[in-house]
């Protein structure tokens, strides 16, 4: 499955490219593009956050055999959830991830942030392909609520999730 990374707004140099380069099998890096953050429609000044569902609605439609994964520096919310690391509608092949909360305790280590962001992109792309949360603790599809918890996961799918993707039991959109 090809992955197109869409960078919304500004990003640290090389971050998105590093994520794209780190994608695990069966994901394949396809392309990277930059877009403006849809602030006019999706940014809440009162909250200082982007509405994740609104962002998903404003993403370009994925091409055949492709998944679109947006990344942003701005924190995300999905009312009534106060924040989310990322969001995807199951099987929609569209997802969004923010690294705003992933920078916590990275000690400005770019490699750690890249790893966390890659893990969460792999996680949301998995949802976009129809995977649900996985009980395997180090699988990228395991649910995590804190940045440090993301470090306990690998930026890849466990055998069970890989089998689910391969057997087409999950929606291919």
């Amino acid at each position, binding site marked *: 499955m090809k992955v197109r990374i869409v960078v919304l707004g500004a990003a640290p140099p090389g971050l998105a490219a590093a994520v794209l380069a780190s994608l695990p099998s069966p994901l394949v890096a396809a392309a990277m593009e930059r877009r403006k953050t849809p602030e006019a429609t999706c940014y809440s000044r009162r909250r200082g956050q982007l509405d994740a*569902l609104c962002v998903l609605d404003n993403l370009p439609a994925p091409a055949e055999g492709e998944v679109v994964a947006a990344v942003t520096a701005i924190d995300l919310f*999905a009312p009534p959830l106060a924040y989310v690391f990322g969001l995807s*509608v199951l099987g929609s092949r569209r997802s969004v991830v923010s690294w705003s909360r992933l920078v916590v305790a990275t000690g400005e280590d770019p490699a750690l942030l890249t790893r966390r962001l890659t893990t969460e992109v792999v996680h949301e792309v998995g949802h976009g392909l129809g995977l*649900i949360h996985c009980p395997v603790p180090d699988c990228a599809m395991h649910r995590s609520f804190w940045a440090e918890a993301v470090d306990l996961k690998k930026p890849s799918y466990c055998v069970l999730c890989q089998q689910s993707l391969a057997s087409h039991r999950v929606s291919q959109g």
Partner: protein
Amino acid sequence: MTMAPVRILVVDDEQHVRQSLAAWFREDGYEVNVAAGGREALATLARDGADILLVDIKMPGMDGLELLRKARELAPDATVIIMTAYASVETAVQALKDGAYDYVVKPFDPDAVSGLVRKAAERYALLKENRALRERLESAAPALITAGQGRMREVQELVERVAPTDTSVVITGESGTGKELVARLLHAHSSRRFGPFAVVNCGALAEGLLEAELFGHERGAFTGAVARHRGKVELAHEGTLFLDEIGDVPAKVQVSLLRVLQEKTLMRVGGNTSITVDFRLVTATHRDLEAEVSSGRFREDFFFRINVFHIHVPALRERSEDVPLLAEHFLSQFARQMNRRIDGFTSDAIAALCAYPWPGNVRELQNAIERAVVMCRANRIEASLFPFAHAPAPEDLSIDAMEAAHIRKVLASCGFNVTQAAGLLAIDRVTLYNKMKKYGIERP
């Protein structure tokens, strides 16, 4: 085995909230439905059901509180979580009083709501398991085996009437008639059926041991009391206490039991702490308790306290119409236990069973069938497998009893065809009917 996914219904008038939460919970593998208001939620609940409801408390039209009350009628086991803003926390507290499981204040942290829903899902799984266990328990409840006629029908009706009450019941009847089965029936059909059913055979224990068995004892209360022991009265808390052979209880223990019944508290032997107990008392005896009271062997006050309702279980010879049915029941039970394939009884065997007076009642019949199943080498049980079929008639049988047994035997041998039986007996049909009435013989 794959478990069916937990079904969540999100009810909120804001489309954005519905969409976000639906996406969020689907990622966890839940099956999610959404509704924009109370009416739509009730329709969805009636159509698709739901295990967990997330309900916004402030909605136009039917608010969350009203929806909560109506949803509880439609889906009493569903877990309702209220979503509220800070300003309406007081209303959320009211929702808790009305039966909501918990509430979350908007906007909420993802981990808070995820944890809450996980706990609600676990609660749902426990409720489901609990319900399944209760259904299994109810389906395993004992049943009276009777042709549904005569005196056992009366017993059945009495059990049905008194079981749901908390009334103390005395069951009388000869040994082996099934007094404990009637006691278990009373328990199984009472509101205490999910509580314990504690049994004490009062006739089998010496006075000191009976006291310890009933009321328990503290460590060191007497020689040999090496550990604290909870008595059967205490163990019967919120259930039924069945005291078999109550007529054999010594006077001193009768006094102690009377005190427990009146005060609803007990003290373990050697203890000094009062323990509150709540149980329903069912007793049984083969003795004539009124005669025991008259002769001074049984305390009158205790008798009146326990004998609020009386059920007499007739002897098997008084309900011979039940013999074939009981025999079939025990045959199927023992054949299953011993993994034997036996199709039934020969007509001679049925006739022999019906003719025998069963002094040991149902217990003796049960033993006879068990023995016959062990001995049987054919696919049907024959009369020769019953020891009593060869035994000479007991000397104390009266002419009437002999006649009744003979009529039963002949009737059973010709499938209760009265005309045929009358021909074999060389009497007319009216005479046979009169004799059947006289001896209480009824068609099975």
